């Protein structure tokens, strides 16, 4: 594993990269526009106010720490109290008995967010399939990221492992909204395996550039790259130094089917909470056809503008 650290202002901005996905092309094109729809938070540019989904097994006592409430408060939160049941239990049967408790628990947490100046939405779901529920609700609320909670103390260090092309625009919206404090620092960390097509250096540079464009102080952004055969293990090990991890949801590789999603595996092993950046689902994605753009962005940006 070789490290190659540079700070963002030293990093060269490479020639405009090949578009990887149509979404990304769109994002890049728009970033050169005059940005009529730009909102600002603390003087930083937010294109699409991020929505963070917090799925919590409240009946099993799962909650988020006070520091995480503070950290997430600038975003729009959707607090999802879910209870996963074995198939022998009808969801209706469990809801008759536990609905009230679940609702109380999630409202307590919502109050904590309200005290921190936010206005969260709350949902209570009884389900036989946790993943299905999270995916459905994330789609319905147009979530930018989904939180996989882990205990954490004060949040200063944000670690962004980048292992595949990432939606810089979404990442920037989320990170720019979250890093408010003076001590907050962001590390963009590109990882790749030997012989992989993915160019981590270019990816982190592009992400850093996007953050700079949004007005994030270059001094707070660090970029680095590693070549490794065991990215998941490396990220888990590194998590001890980070206070929160932001990463893209894993694509459906064979390994992820067998062992679970990478982000889930990292959240299980890591010390820090993980914010999983969601890809836009086809219904949320801004289509290539510009004539349909107005409708689509209205749907995708639902909660914001």
């Amino acid at each position: 594993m070789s490290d190659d650290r540079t700070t963002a202002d030293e990093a060269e901005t490479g020639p405009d990269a090949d578009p990887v996905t149509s979404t990304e092309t769109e994002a890049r094109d728009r970033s050169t526009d005059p940005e009529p729809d730009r909102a600002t938070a603390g003087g930083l540019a937010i294109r699409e106010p991020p929505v963070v989904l917090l799925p919590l097994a409240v009946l099993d006592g799962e909650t988020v720490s006070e520091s995480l409430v503070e950290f997430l408060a600038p975003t729009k939160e959707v607090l999802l109290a879910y209870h996963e049941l074995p198939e022998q239990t009808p969801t209706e049967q469990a809801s008759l008995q536990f609905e009230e408790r679940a609702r109380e628990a999630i409202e307590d947490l919502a109050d904590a967010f309200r005290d921190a100046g936010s206005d969260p939405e709350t949902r209570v779901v009884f389900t036989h399939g946790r993943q299905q529920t999270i995916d459905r609700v994330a789609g319905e609320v147009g979530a930018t990221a989904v939180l996989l909670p882990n205990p954490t103390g004060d949040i200063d260090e944000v670690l962004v492992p980048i292992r595949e092309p990432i939606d810089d625009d979404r990442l920037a919206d989320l990170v720019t909204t979250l890093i408010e404090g003076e001590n907050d620092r962001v590390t963009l960390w590109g990882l790749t395996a030997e012989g992989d097509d993915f160019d981590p250096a270019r990816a982190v540079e592009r992400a850093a550039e996007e953050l700079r464009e949004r007005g994030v102080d270059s001094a707070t952004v660090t970029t680095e790259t590693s070549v490794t055969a065991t990215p998941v293990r490396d990220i888990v090990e590194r998590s001890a130094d980070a206070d929160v991890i932001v990463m893209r949801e894993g694509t459906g590789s064979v390994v992820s089917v067998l062992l679970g999603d990478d982000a889930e595996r990292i959240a299980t092993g890591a010390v820090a909470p993980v914010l999983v950046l969601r890809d836009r689902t086809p219904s949320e994605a801004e289509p290539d056809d510009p004539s349909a753009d107005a409708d689509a962005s209205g749907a995708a940006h639902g909660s914001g503008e």
Partner: protein
Amino acid sequence: MTASGEETVASGENRAGETPQTAIVSTPEGTDEPSVTETGTELERTIGLTGGIAIGVGTMIGAGIFVFPGIAAGRAGPAAAVSFGLGAIIALLVALPASELATAMPKSGGGYYFISRALGALPGAIVGISIWLGLVFATAFYLVGFGNYAAAVLAEAGVDVAGVPVVVPLALLFGVFLTALNLFGTENAAALQNYVVGLLLTILVIFLGYGGLDALGVFGRASTPETFAPFGATPVFTTAALVFTSYLGFAQVATVAGDIKRPGRNLPLAMIASVVLVGVLYVATIFVATSAFGSAALASFGETAIVEVARNFGGRAGAIAILIAGLLATVSSANASILSTSRAVFAVSKDALVPGIAGRVNLRYGTPHVALSMAGGPVLVLVALGEVEVLAEVASFLHLVMYSLMCVALFAMRRDEPEWYDPAFRVPAYPLVAGLGAVSSAGLILFMQPTSQIIGIAIMLASAGWYKYYADDVQLKGVL
């Protein structure tokens, strides 16, 4: 407390002072949207079409192919195929009205729910409580079937049991195991069920395909010539009454209606598809089995006759494949029945027809421990009796009463359609279909053994007595 003019509010209280609970207030039919309760809580729908068919087929297939062929052939000769065909037709006549009612009321509880809402609390209570016991009888029957297969596996493996009867002890052991698994198991086995059913269907299609070709003389062996109905017409009907247990599973799909995605489409499809699928397999199995051996020989093989048929075609390997399939099929049927039993208990406890404690869920394991115990406990008693034919017939009796009343419920709904009644699926020519369904379901009961009829009637009377004693005041008709 008396029923108010408000028809959509459940009312009345039982002897313990409990009132019926309504949880779900909205149930979308055509989408994957969850059901929503009064306070806005969402109940995720997680079972797709495949899962629904797997529940139906998984519940049914254990009996018709792996337990009944020998017994049925012994009673009716090759005409047992007609008995199975009759069963399939009756099941279809009921599955259509059940589909309409289920898409109009896609809630957990199935037949009990439709009948109590359409015909009132007394018929509802009789059906609700007797279907709990009907499922207990069915589960016991499947477990005894499993015991037979487990014993045959031991025999195949050369284990000497020294003449000790092992069928019932093995069935009891597995009954305890399955109940415990459901009480404490938190792993979702739904996907596993799909694979088991898929594997079963694969083994059966290979077996029946080969056997069918053989029976038609393709491989040049003479099949056993035999009179089609050596014992006349009546045994065809009594056999149909006996083997109807092989079709009890389709209505179980309706008991998970609350969990099925796009219920307006998937419920009717899953119910009808599973009946047609198992019906074809049953008829083919009898055809193949009676072609391979004479009915008398087949009858002498008893519950595991189909293993000998497979041995005849495929030697030891064929026998072992069918033995494994038989174990899987009877386990899957027994397990599905235990789950249905637990749901049936919940449905009546939610409506305050039995004490509410029966519907309690254990937070640690997330399982309905009381309802599951009310399934597993009585099952063990019945397994100990070990009477396959009586177990099967009583189970069928109690289900057939429910099926007949479901058809009547359809008439009640259609004749005076309430405003909320908006099924996504409507039975074509409903007076004919539901009328035939009601009459043929009730008619089949007449061909059962007197013992089974007496036990069935006693259970229904006891259920009615319980309602009068415990929950006379509870009103359910028209309540959604």
